[in-house]
């Protein structure tokens, strides 16, 4: 197979900012895809030498292991606060906080909102898979109404547990953020759109414009008890109804 490649030109190769380590994610998990997109954009912008990843608690706890750049692992929910500290001490660095929904929208909600409200010049990548994946599929603040989880086996009941929290819309009401968007990854077109949004968020940070927030609707085939292909179809048909896609703020 390799020999036939010699006369061909590469269309898609592994980004240089990705390390050689294999991802520890489950088969079909969108975390891997988001990691690849981030590495690709870091390559394109030529910022590998001055990028710092702030990893969350959750499935992406090893996020700093996948990139060939510096990284810190924050306490649960505190990634935005840690990123704030790094960026204020070293404004020349590009600081990316990578967080899931349990981390960002539950235990870290205060840090998230206040970092956004202060307009910290960081980029936050929010992976919204509507469940606590790492701990065994419990209900998250973003779990859909009626969605089954191990801590709500009858489905989320809004009378007891409220409604899924829409972080992008919530942060879009604030004055300071320069970019707030929600994307998805269920087909190649949406993967490209997500790449574009991540590129925009990091570009705004490089230009010193301010806080950017990219929410990405991700799957969790294991937690949802679906095959990866089914899970992607579920995002297209159901999840995007509860979490509409779009750019909510773009002051670039």
């Amino acid at each position, binding site marked *: 197979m390799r020999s036939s490649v010699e006369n*061909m030109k590469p*269309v*898609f190769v592994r980004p240089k900012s990705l390390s050689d380590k*294999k*991802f520890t994610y489950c088969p079909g998990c969108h975390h891997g895809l988001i990691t690849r997109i981030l590495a690709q954009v870091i390559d394109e912008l030529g910022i590998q030498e001055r990028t710092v990843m702030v990893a969350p608690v959750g499935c992406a706890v090893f996020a700093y292991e996948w990139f060939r750049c510096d990284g810190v692992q924050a306490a649960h929910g505190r990634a935005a606060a840690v990123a704030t500290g790094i960026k204020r001490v070293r404004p020349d660095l590009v600081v990316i906080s990578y967080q899931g929904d349990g981390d960002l929208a539950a235990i870290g909600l205060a840090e998230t909102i206040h970092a956004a409200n202060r307009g910290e010049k960081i980029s936050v990548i929010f992976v919204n898979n509507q469940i606590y994946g790492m701990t065994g599929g419990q209900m998250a603040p973003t779990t859909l109404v009626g969605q089954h989880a191990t801590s709500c086996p009858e489905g989320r009941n809004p009378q007891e547990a409220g409604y899924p929290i829409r972080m992008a819309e919530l942060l879009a009401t604030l004055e300071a953020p320069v970019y707030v968007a929600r994307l998805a990854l269920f*087909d*190649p077109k949406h993967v490209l759109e997500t790449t574009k949004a991540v590129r925009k968020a990091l570009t705004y940070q490089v230009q010193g414009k301010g806080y950017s927030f990219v929410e990405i609707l991700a799957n969790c*085939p294991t937690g949802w008890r679906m095959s*990866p292909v089914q899970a*992607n179809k579920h995002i297209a048909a159901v999840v995007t109804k509860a979490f509409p896609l779009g750019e909510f703020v773009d002051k670039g």
Partner: protein
Amino acid sequence: MPKGTAVIDRERCKGCGVCLATCPFGVLEFTGEFNSSGYPVAQMAHPEKCTGCGLCALVCPDVAIEVHREEKVAA
């Protein structure tokens, strides 16, 4: 149609099947082979149909696919 090929890193592939569902030409299939982690591995079952469009690599969550395409030759 240009000719292309997908090079699959069989040790990275976790057999999620998203590339199979995405390929518009039905190039990729599971052929019953497993890697050392026990995952079924996606294979180029019909290499003659590959145009090198790169969609399989674009959706692969484990960055297990590289895609190459023949240069366009002027007619």
